[in-house]
């Protein structure tokens, strides 16, 4: 058996934490090798070492049987190793082609030969079924297209070993499906793929082999065909994980959030939310599902105050908050777990402890007469870290930037849930989280519901919507096309409504006024 890549006894320390502890990973040529592990288990670190971004403190790497020292990404590239990062590295106002050729531009004399570059990009794009327009600007194309540009960047450099770090976290189910096909196509053409993901389904679908890490240590490597999802989850978390949310029936009370005839423009200046009405009652979770880009973002931003509305009313209890500043909405009891965690969720250069008090740093006990009380901030942070199992190198003192992607997400969720807002807008709360963390977050959301809070859950994951919600509203083209009982609906029915084929606006008349 020949391995194309072997990472032997790799150890890597960060301040306060051993991110990789004696890890050995052997990758077979022309296979898809999955890497599974809890948030902060060290997956991204291990892959960054292979790509030359970090140097291991000990251990060795062999590529195609030869021992190598990958001192920086250039060395990795020359060895045929490419990586798609968790956060894309694309220049937003460059074209697709410019981003791809950057660093190895084909040229005629001193001038970049953009024509032949575009042609080559188009050819590669065709070969692997990527359908990317080489002349489009990055800021004008969708996230999934941007990801394909990242893939093209590797292929343009003749990469043979492709590393994907949580590629599906930012994609819609349809796009995930397409990416899986692209990956299979890549392997057919002789590439080897290393795939980091938290979604066991995806591993079952495409991967051949799966290596599991836990807290920086190797747990084991298994063949995917012979291992079921429950077993993989157990290896990763170290205990049995329940994939289903345990919850009693909802006891809905008064309407806490009521939206009436709301119109909101999207970034293109068109109506993204059209005359939408909706209400969420105390003690229930209303799930909002739909294909990405059907108005969810605009609706959430209108409720939370991140964007201006065209017309309509948004009542929190009986106060119309539609035109209030964000801070007043927050003070009235509105909470929000934002979609873009790096942009709206955390100040990356602040410590974890500071990020936890970002809403109420000026209140007692965190501030006394205008002076911050470090001790109270620290105690608060330590409590949240414990409760939500937020893992990082230096606890409350870790800069948010130095935390793993999933732990950043956990930190936001912890801060917002802990405030226990009366009306809670929860968007993609478990994006990038491991199954154990997902289980816990879902439990906490249900606990909030049972305390009589009104929760609007927006997610692209149907499983999450169906498991956690009591009622499900389907949004299509900026309109609510139906509200159904979560216990009584099926994935098929939701799918039909999400695609606009089926309307069910009379199912819950007390909540919809169309």
């Amino acid at each position, binding site marked *: 058996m020949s391995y194309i890549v072997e990472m032997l006894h790799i150890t890597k320390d960060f301040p306060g934490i051993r991110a990789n502890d004696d890890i050995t990973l052997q990758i077979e040529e022309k296979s898809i090798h999955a890497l599974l592990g809890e948030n902060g288990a060290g997956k991204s670190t291990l892959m960054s070492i292979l790509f030359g971004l970090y140097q291991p403190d000990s251990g060795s790497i062999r590529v195609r049987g030869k021992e190598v020292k990958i001192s920086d990404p250039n060395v990795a590239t020359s060895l045929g190793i490419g990586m798609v990062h968790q956060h894309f590295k694309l*220049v937003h106002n460059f074209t697709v082609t410019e981003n791809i050729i*950057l660093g190895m531009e084909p040229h005629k004399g001193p001038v970049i030969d953009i024509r032949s570059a575009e042609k080559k990009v188009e050819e590669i794009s065709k070969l692997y079924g990527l359908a990317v327009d080489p002349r489009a600007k990055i800021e004008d194309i969708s996230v999934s297209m941007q990801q394909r540009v990242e893939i093209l960047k590797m292929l343009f450099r003749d990469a043979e070993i492709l590393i994907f770090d949580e590629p599906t976290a930012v994609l819609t189910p349809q796009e995930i499906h397409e990416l899986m096909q692209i990956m299979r196509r890549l392997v057919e053409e002789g590439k080897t793929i290393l795939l980091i993901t938290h979604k066991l389904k995806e591993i079952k679908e495409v991967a051949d082999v799966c290596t599991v890490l836990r807290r920086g240590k190797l747990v084991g490597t298994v063949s995917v065909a012979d291992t079921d999802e429950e077993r993989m989850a157990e290896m990763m978390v170290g205990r049995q994980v329940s994939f289903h949310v345990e919850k009693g029936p909802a006891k809905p009370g008064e309407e806490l959030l009521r939206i009436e005839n709301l119109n909101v423009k999207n970034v293109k200046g068109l109506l993204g939310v059209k005359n939408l009405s909706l209400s969420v009652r105390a003690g229930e979770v209303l799930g909002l599902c739909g294909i990405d880009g059907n108005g969810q973002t605009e609706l959430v931003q209108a409720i939370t105050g991140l964007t201006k509305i065209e017309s309509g009313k948004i009542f929190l209890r009986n106060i119309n908050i539609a035109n209030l500043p964000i801070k007043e909405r927050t003070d009235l009891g509105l909470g929000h777990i934002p979609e873009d965690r790096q942009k709206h969720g955390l100040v990356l250069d602040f410590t974890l402890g500071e990020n936890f008090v970002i809403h109420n740093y000026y209140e007692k006990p965190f501030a006394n007469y205008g002076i911050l009380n470090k001790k109270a901030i620290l105690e608060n942070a330590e409590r949240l870290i414990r409760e939500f199992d937020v893992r990082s190198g230096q606890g409350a003192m870790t800069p948010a930037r130095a935390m793993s992607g999933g732990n950043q997400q956990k930190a936001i969720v912890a801060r917002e849930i802990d405030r226990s807002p009366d009306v809670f807008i929860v968007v993609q709360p478990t994006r990038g989280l491991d199954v154990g963390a997902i289980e816990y977050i879902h439990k906490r959301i249900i606990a909030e519901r049972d305390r009589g809070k009104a929760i609007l859950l927006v997610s692209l994951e149907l499983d999450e919507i169906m498991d956690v919600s009591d009622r499900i509203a389907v949004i299509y083209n900026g309109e609510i096309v139906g509200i159904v009982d979560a216990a009584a609906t099926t994935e098929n029915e939701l799918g039909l409504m999400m695609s606009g084929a089926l309307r069910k606006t009379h199912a819950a008349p007390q909540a919809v006024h169309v």
Partner: protein
Amino acid sequence: MTFELLLQMFPIALMFSAPIILTALGGLFSERSGIVNIALEGIMMVGAFTGATVTVLLENSTPAAAWYGLLAGLLAGVVFSILHAVASINLKADQVISGTALNILAGGLTVYLCQIIFHQQRTRAFSNGIQKFSVPGLSDIPVLGRMFFKEIYPTFYIAIAMVFITWFVVYKTPLGLRMRACGEHPQAAASMGINVAKMRYFGVLVSGALGGLGGAVMVLTADIQYTLVSIHGTGFISLASLVFGKWNPFGVLGAGLFFGFSTALSFYAKDIKFLAGLPGEFFYILPYLLTIIALLFFAGKSVGPKAAGEIYDSGKR
């Protein structure tokens, strides 16, 4: 305003435009690579001082003294800008603070050196700076000839040539693509194997070269010697031209011409009927007023390079 007056204004407006355009192009290189360079004012001062000094010292031995002055100004600008590069790239200092420090240093340093070399607070006056000339043939074209080719300082043509060279380098060559990538998203550039520090050094040093040249051009065309107030804010006006011109070489050309004309206007205002009533001081403050307005309106807008001013940390994720 008579047409004749306008024609008369052209050569002097173009004279004032040349150093602004050159220096603003320097700023363009620096900011496109990701380093905010408000030290342009100081760089111009150092370039102007060196240009004037070399001209004075060589005057008796060569008729091309002023041209050596220009070259010396350019080189002095490069050397001076190394300070900014080291502070903001290697030492990761705040670029605005480093730039401010350099502006302050430039004043003290040049006057100090004047004191040592000339035993006074200014350089000795040179007898010949850069000379005006007329382009044979072209200067006889009616109207256009008088506007652009007759009695013109060759430095204006250098500035125009620099606009095209800048455009070519920034938008057409691999070097330009890489430099812009460093100014927009240095992490992305680094992940493609580009040495961000090297690119930014290139940007800052070119801004030093063009800013130093701009300073020397200014003193050797519009002045008779270097004094502490020879540059009087032209570096900041160049910065404003960069912002007005949206970080694009041709935009910079337009903005530079605009500021050149607004400076020239102060000399001609008295001859223009409907402007003569305004106090003369008004026209002196005009370029600076426009600079403030430019910076006020555009400073917050995200039209410039995204990562300009941001300290690049390779460990950032």
